[in-house]
């Protein structure tokens, strides 16, 4: 098996617990992301999703373990890894357009002003922002528009890996839907590799090629990797017709609702700490798993 584009190996994060001991948030998190793949990570609060994201972004250091991108170890932040933060992180004293050119200028310092602006406008238009709106300050934009600007800023930089930290967490359900569609649209035209944190199962199914499931913390781990083999292009009204949709969705609901708790703290002694791959077969209703040692009868019952 060849090394994936992004390879996260035995990542462990410990924090002091305030009483002299240490708190292990997650342990031996191991997974890979292939070039051009859209991967979502799902898990409850406190399992360390955001910490993993910060480590991938280079904003935090893990206690142990390594992250390799293109076979090079990640250390420190880089323009090759763009980040869309949950709270947008737009600079409030700059207009929407300037926020995007801020990123483009950092990426292409030798470009002329016009070229920078043209690219920025192009990407803002791709997320549905054009006209006078681009000259507004973030405080004059709605939450949805702000997150669009933030997405445009990230995509305009053509990072090798795009990290999305619960980008729609602060938005209302309707706006969220619209921006998810826009994200799919802008992503569809690129070969962009995306790694995204989310709480939202439907969002993950709509967007992702693969969903990583984390058990609850402390001692959280990446337990399963669920393949979302629903053909693209997807849209929210059609994916529900896919024969695998409900099987996948039920699996995720069961995992988050029940198994993430049951599996919590369960130490695995084996050397191979990669998550089990779970795949639902499009032709039937049965579930096939690779590298799976124990399969849950409960899950099968739900799926049929």
């Amino acid at each position, binding site marked *: 098996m060849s090394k994936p584009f992004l390879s996260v190996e035995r990542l462990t994060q410990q924090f002091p617990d305030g009483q002299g001991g240490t708190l292990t948030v997650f342990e031996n998190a191991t997974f890979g992301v292939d070039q051009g793949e859209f991967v979502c990570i799902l898990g409850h609060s406190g399992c360390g999703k955001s910490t993993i994201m910060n480590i991938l972004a280079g*904003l935090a250091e893990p206690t142990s373990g390594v992250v390799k991108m293109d076979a090079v170890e990640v250390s420190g*932040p*880089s323009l090759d890894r763009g*980040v869309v*933060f949950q709270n947008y*992180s737009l600079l*409030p004293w700059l207009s929407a357009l300037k926020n995007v050119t801020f990123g483009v200028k950092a990426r292409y310092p030798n470009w002329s002003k016009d070229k920078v602006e043209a690219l920025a406008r192009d990407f803002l238009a791709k997320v549905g922002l054009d006209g006078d709106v681009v000259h507004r300050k973030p405080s004059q934009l709605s939450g949805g528009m702000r997150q669009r600007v933030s997405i445009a800023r990230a995509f305009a930089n053509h990072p090798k890996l795009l990290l999305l930290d619960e980008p729609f967490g602060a938005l209302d359900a309707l706006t969220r839907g619209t921006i998810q569609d826009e994200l799919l649209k802008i992503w569809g035209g690129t070969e962009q590799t995306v790694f995204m944190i989310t709480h939202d199962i439907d969002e993950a199914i709509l967007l992702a090629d693969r969903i990583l499931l984390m058990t609850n913390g402390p001692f959280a781990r990446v337990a399963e990797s669920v393949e979302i083999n629903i053909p693209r292009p997807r849209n929210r009204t059609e994916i529900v017709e896919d024969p695998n949709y409900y099987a996948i969705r039920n699996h995720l609901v069961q995992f988050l609702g029940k198994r993430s708790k049951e599996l919590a703290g369960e130490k695995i002694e084996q050397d191979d700490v990669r998550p089990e791959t779970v795949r639902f077969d499009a032709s039937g209703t049965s579930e096939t798993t690779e590298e799976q040692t124990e399969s849950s009868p409960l899950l099968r019952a739900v799926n049929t």
Partner: protein
Amino acid sequence: MLGSLSINQRAAILSILMLVCGLLIWEAAIPAQKAATELTEYERLMGLGEERAGVPPPSDVLAKAWEQLSNPFYDAGPNDKGIGIQIGYSIYRVLTGYALAAIVAIPLGFLIGMSQVAYKAFNPFIQVLRPISPLAWMPLALFIIQDSEASAIFVIFICSIWPMLINTAFGVAGVRSDWVNVARTHELGSFKTAFTVILPAAAPTIVTGMRISIGIAWLVIVAAEMLVGGTGIGYYVWNEWNNLDLTSVIFSILMIGVVGMLLDAAFSVLQRAVAYAE
């Protein structure tokens, strides 16, 4: 009728009313001095014909203001210069001392705001030096610098440095980590981060400190010039007091207020320019 006016218009009418009433009461409260020709011979013998020093009525102050402001830059020797020249000297001293303070305080404030160690190291000195009345430095400054002009500027420097220093440090330390993270993920260097992210983010707090400083500097320059003498609005006030020319004293007090207001207004424009809403 009043209901149809805007809040600003109503406030303006009220302001003018207060001004007129105040001036009328002031005018009425000053006992008129009889002209020498109206006095009885006895009164003249008792010396009541001499002009007596008293608080002048507002009409005299207005006449003085008209006279001074119509020719503000005349220079008739060391003790007789126009109000414009005196204010000019004061503004020059304030701005020089203030600019020197800004050059020191803002970069130092950046350092203190960015580094916990620098903050803790500088803090005891700041806490001890800050409460010292700027005029207390005057004797030491006069002895070391040996120049009254430079000493006055030094006093302005020392009084305007603290609010700028503390506000800059506070503003820089309070820059949201999200924005710093944006700079980091865009691989900006330290200088670029400082100028394109931290400075604009902290600018409102820094300018607030600068505005407090200019206010304090203008308060202190009057007192400093009373001590060092020679030129300046503070010296002018004291000189007119020695001349027992209370009309000029009241006029110059008003001018001090007006200039202070204009300096503050300039910074409020700057403050609005750097303000941002989150």
